């Protein structure tokens, strides 16, 4: 039988929440970043499911762009992380509280 449409959304939601948990509870900044990618991925999934459900291709176009943006974002984000690592010698977010106060 065909998969009910809402299940895809449920899956996307679950993935998203797992990603959120990772962002909140991990200390390694690289892992945090990966969880962010996970969240993005979940959103993409949701969009494509909707595109299929609504019968048009706009959702896929959005995912296309989201993919491009994610690529750009990852490269810049990793550059920042590298720079942070050079300056602080650590990738533990709890030790980088420069904005404190």
């Amino acid at each position, binding site marked *: 039988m065909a998969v009910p449409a809402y299940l895809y959304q449920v899956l996307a939601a679950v993935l998203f929440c797992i990603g959120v948990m990772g962002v*909140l509870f991990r200390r390694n900044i690289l892992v945090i970043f990966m969880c962010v990618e996970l969240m993005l991925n979940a959103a993409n999934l949701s969009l494509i499911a909707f595109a299929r459900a609504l019968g048009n291709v706009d959702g896929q176009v959005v995912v296309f762009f989201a993919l491009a943006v994610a690529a750009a974002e990852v490269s810049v984000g990793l550059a920042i992380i590298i720079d942070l690592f050079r300056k602080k010698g650590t990738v533990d977010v709890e030790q*980088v*509280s420069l904005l404190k106060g």
Partner: protein
Amino acid sequence: MLQLFWLIPLLPLFGFLLNGLGLKWMPRKAAGWLACGAVGAAFAIGVGALIELIGLPLADRSITHVLFPWIMAGDFHVNVAFMWDPLSAVMTLIVTGVGFLIHVYSLGYMAHDEGFKRYFAYLNLFTFAMLVLVLADNFLLLFVGWEGVGLCSYLLIGFWYTKKSAADAGKKAFIVNRIGDFGVLVAMMLTFWTLGTLTFPEVFHRAQTLLSPGTAIPTAIALLFFLGATGKSAQIPLYVWLPDAMEGPTPVSALIHAATMVTAGVYLFVRASGMFVLAPDALAIVAVVGAVTAIFAATIGLVQTDIKRVLAYSTVSQLGYMFLAVGAGAFVAAIFHLLTHAFFKALLFLGSGSVIEACHHEQDIRKMGGLGAKLPITKTTFIIGSLALAGVPIFAGFFSKDEILYSVFTSQLGGLGKVLWILGAAAALLTAFYITRLVALTFYGKPRDKHIYDHAHESPKVMTVPLVILAILSTVGGFLGLPLAEKANVMHNWLGPWVGGHGAEAPSGAEGAVLHATSHSAGLEVALMAISVALAIIGIWAAWRLYIKDLPRVQELSRKFAGAYRVLWNKYYVDEIYNALFVRPIVDGSRVLWRAFDVGVIDWAVNGTGRVLRGTASYLRPIQNGLAGSYAAAILLGAILIMGYVLLGGWR
């Protein structure tokens, strides 16, 4: 010239601005000449305008020049406008004429003073304000001038502001005046409320039609204005600032506290006489206060030892005469006395200034004596002034004082008038006495302080020439108001139609004093004249005998009547009484209020706000721990809350 009369106040204003703004770079001499020139030019214009005014037919003798519309708020219209009519012309010439002489005198008197330029700036400012006062065509502008002269009085009394007594005297003058100003303000409000206007011609016109004589409103207005007059013109109960005002430079005392500012109250009453005749009860009170003040101040002046204080109390006393005249309905007589008083009182003050200069700023007459030989011009002019003050015929004071006394005696005040006449006559006796005492102790007898006597010298020409001019005026000035000769009485013919209810309308040729009950009786007038002359001579003779021939007896008398002497010398302890009754309670009350309210409540609230904020901030600060993770958690929490709210139907 008539069309340019509105320049008259502006010339001294210009002088003030130049001197005031240019204090740094204006050369000393130039400042003095500029100030004198401004007033002198104003005087010249005034003379020209007066001559042209004389040439106009009787009914046209009032010219208004509007400078600009000032307040236009609904029904309330007030312009900045000046009015040139016989009354304002007379006042203007007094202010500018005597003012000019005093300006010139000051060139000499203040020559060695540090604040020379500041002094002349203030003097010009004062002249401007006073001219605004007398030329205003409405109550509000008059009040502007009124306040302006009050301000200048403060500035000039406290001219030597580093001296505590001078600074205090300045404050006292201003504060006491303020009490009177309250009366003027309320009176103006009442006037506007009932009559709908503040411009003089309209006010008097409407007053005649809208207000009934003797009712509450005109009486209230009159009494409130009188409250202001007691402040500005130093009557009981607000005269207390005038003796202290002698802390200022002597020419200031001459100008402000003898010739011009203190006469503002009298001028106000004469100007508004058209309205005040509707309040005979108020006028009666004015007369009583005036008479009582006259004799009260005269008693104090009997024993004062500071040359200027004697003259100060004399001024209070003479102002009392003017108000007595006003109260009796003799408005022209009041102005006449104002005029003559300006001459001889200014003369006396300037003369005393000359003496003080000669004695190196000594003002205690107990240390003087025999100065006549060293200061001949001063002595002669001073004596002329004294004779005028005492009311000796042919000198100016005689005519004006006499007319007042006659008017009071025959006024509609009836029996009260006779009583007041007695007070006035008694005051005249005392006046003659104290002024002769002053002359005797200063210029005659044996010098009591060798040092002062040796160094005494006559003043320079720039000071003695004004003295001489004033002396001449004090001699012939009285002929402007000859009694018993209706056609020749210049003052009455000039001013009569313009005061006392005839102002600004087509005047009849009748006398201004509409309140005369009895007819003009020549015999009575002569008889009363004779009595006052006799009193004057008695006073002079008694003082002469006592203070020139028999000085030790003075000591004896002062010991015998030590109690009375002490009371008089301490001016009836009025200042102390006021202090206990009014000043101390207010000051103490203020201190309590300050502590309890200002510090306790307001400061507590303001500081408390700061404290609360600081506390809250220190409580909230740990939220910013700089860890991105906790920020992300907060964002998530917020997102969940919002989504929950939306999903549960909260968003419409």
